């Protein structure tokens, strides 16, 4: 440690990039696979490199990226949510029923955000303060949230303002820019006390608690943010389809877990990085697109997806065993 000068303020900048690079070590293989898939995708679908092609691709990735972040956030604190899909649906139906009404886009967005934060905070409170297992709470929660979505909109319907759909799901890369903004916000969050506590709370809750880290607050905040990201994904899906559907989010629960795990997030908390989760979601999204272009039926996609997820998760373990 003697090599580190005492005037750390000016040198922490020099340390920043090596530390960041160090975090890439675990996910380098994943980045390579993602790159290979992007090349394959570009080969199958040359339109990817035009503005509208890029926009369409990032739009298909965007909701998955958000739910992957939502799940990764929880898994980093040692939690998990099986209610992500239901929460996405709820966000979609709230958006589709309020935004064309008197509340307008601003009011609707505020409602969607409030619902996500509120549901997440309540879930977090139950899991953290009442000490119930997260798996079971969120499984029961998925029924409650899904039921609420059915109450708001019993069957697919509602509407989204046309200009919003054009803005988010049109031919501009607005979704990509939004994702960049969200990633920057995540970086900012990591610099706040709650964000700093996130990894500590997941890696070693007892040790962190004894060192004065606000473990409970960090975990509840993680659930709240995860809810916000999920309903946000719902809003985007509603804008994409132009209407609301009370069960549209169902597939996101499995896909969010798969993306996070593909991205190297561990189940025990404190292991993994958000860039890994994002790369995992990108890989999953690419996989689905490539299979679509190769003419796989949706059913064969299920089968292939199951196999690829097991393979991708098992492979690093396999190498570890051989070493």
């Amino acid at each position, binding site marked *: 440690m003697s090599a580190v000068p005492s005037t750390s303020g000016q040198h922490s900048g020099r340390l920043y990039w090596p530390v960041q690079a160090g975090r890439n070590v675990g996910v380098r293989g994943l980045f390579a696979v993602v790159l290979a898939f992007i090349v394959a995708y570009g080969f199958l679908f040359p339109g990817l490199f035009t503005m509208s092609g890029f926009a369409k691709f990032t739009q298909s990735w965007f909701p998955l990226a958000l739910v992957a972040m939502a799940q990764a956030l929880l898994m980093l604190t040692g939690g*998990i949510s099986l209610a992500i899909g239901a929460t996405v649906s709820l966000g979609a139906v709230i958006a589709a029923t309020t935004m064309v009404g008197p509340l307008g886009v601003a009011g609707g967005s505020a409602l969607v955000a409030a619902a996500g934060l509120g549901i997440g905070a309540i879930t977090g409170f*139950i899991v953290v303060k*009442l*000490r*119930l*297992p997260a*798996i*079971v*709470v969120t*499984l*029961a*929660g*998925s*029924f*409650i*949230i*899904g*039921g*609420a*979505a*059915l*109450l708001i909109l*019993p069957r697919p319907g509602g509407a989204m303002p046309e200009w919003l759909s054009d803005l988010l799901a049109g031919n501009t890369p607005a979704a990509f820019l939004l994702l960049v903004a969200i990633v920057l916000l995540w970086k900012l969050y990591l610099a706040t006390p709650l964000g700093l506590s996130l990894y500590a709370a997941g890696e070693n*809750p*007892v040790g962190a*608690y004894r060192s004065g880290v606000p473990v409970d607050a960090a975990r509840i905040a993680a659930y709240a943010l995860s809810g916000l990201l999920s309903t946000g994904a719902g809003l985007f899906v509603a804008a994409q389809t132009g209407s609301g559907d009370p069960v549209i989010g169902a597939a996101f629960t*499995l896909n969010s*877990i*798969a993306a996070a*795990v593909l991205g190297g997030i561990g*189940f025990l908390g404190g292991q993994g990085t958000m860039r890994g989760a994002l790369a995992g979601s990108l890989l999953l999204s690419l996989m689905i697109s490539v299979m679509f272009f190769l003419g796989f039926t949706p*059913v*064969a*996609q*299920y*089968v292939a*997806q*199951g*196999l690829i*997820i*097991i393979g991708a*998760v*098992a492979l690093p*373990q*396999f190498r570890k*065993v051989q070493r």
Partner: protein
Amino acid sequence: MSPKARIMTILRSRPFLTLLVVAAVWIVASLATRGFGAFGHLRYLVELAAVIGLVAAGQTFVVVAGGIDLSVAAIVTVAAVGLPLVSSSADPTGLSAILIVLAMTTAIGLVNGLGVAYLKVHPMIMTLAMATFLQGLLIIIAGGSAVSVQNPLVGWLGNARPAGIPAGVLLWVVISALVLFVMHATPFGARIFAIGANPRAAELSGVPVPATTIAIYGISGLTAGLAGVLVLGMNGQGYVGIGDPYLLASIAAVVLGGTSILGGLGTYAGTIPGSILLVTITALITVVNASPGWRSILFGSLILGLLLLSGREAARR
């Protein structure tokens, strides 16, 4: 232990408390709604609980060993949809088809176990991916239509009532006795608890962890397959999605019965009343004539409420 102390232990045990909750709910519901307390209705509830109880039997093994099986719903469907396909008219009893299906579901469970034990894939991912895989496979095999079954033994299992007791409930009683015996009176059962409490310590103490893990998931596949056969017999038809309600139900029954989702602690004796409790809740919700949305909210809230009463983890020290 003196007899008095032993009685006190039983009275304070989680399975007994869950049983008390069931009894209380039954008594209150019988007084509040007409027909709920009729023998025929209660018998019907226990018959429905038998399916959940069978799925939850394997789930209890897996959860006690520190894992979780999210593929049980898909396996129930595989059994219910697959059985009519393998039934042949050459076998008048229909036993061979049942055995083939059970072998199939056990094999699916064993593959889960192989993935968890040797590839070190987290149980949640392994079984979820298996469920996704099976879901695709089922649609390829069965398509969207329902398949009906002409299998005498399956029909008997679903509809016969020797001495007034449904055959499905008899099957459940037999399986329950077997499960309780294996879990609490054999070395295999002791190993499961050891793995759930601390896998590394179990490994170092000479427990064959991989083999035991594979066997546990195999058992889960077997009991889920049995549940699928029973549900097919009760329904007369199998279709894709028939097993879906049993995923949450099996996990909830295990947790409501006092088994820790973290592993190493619990008993099937709690899962049995847990299954009956779940069916009772569902029946009560059906009595309250509500829209699907409210029904779903009510179901989730009741499970959450019951969990608050019973499923809390120990405080951090």
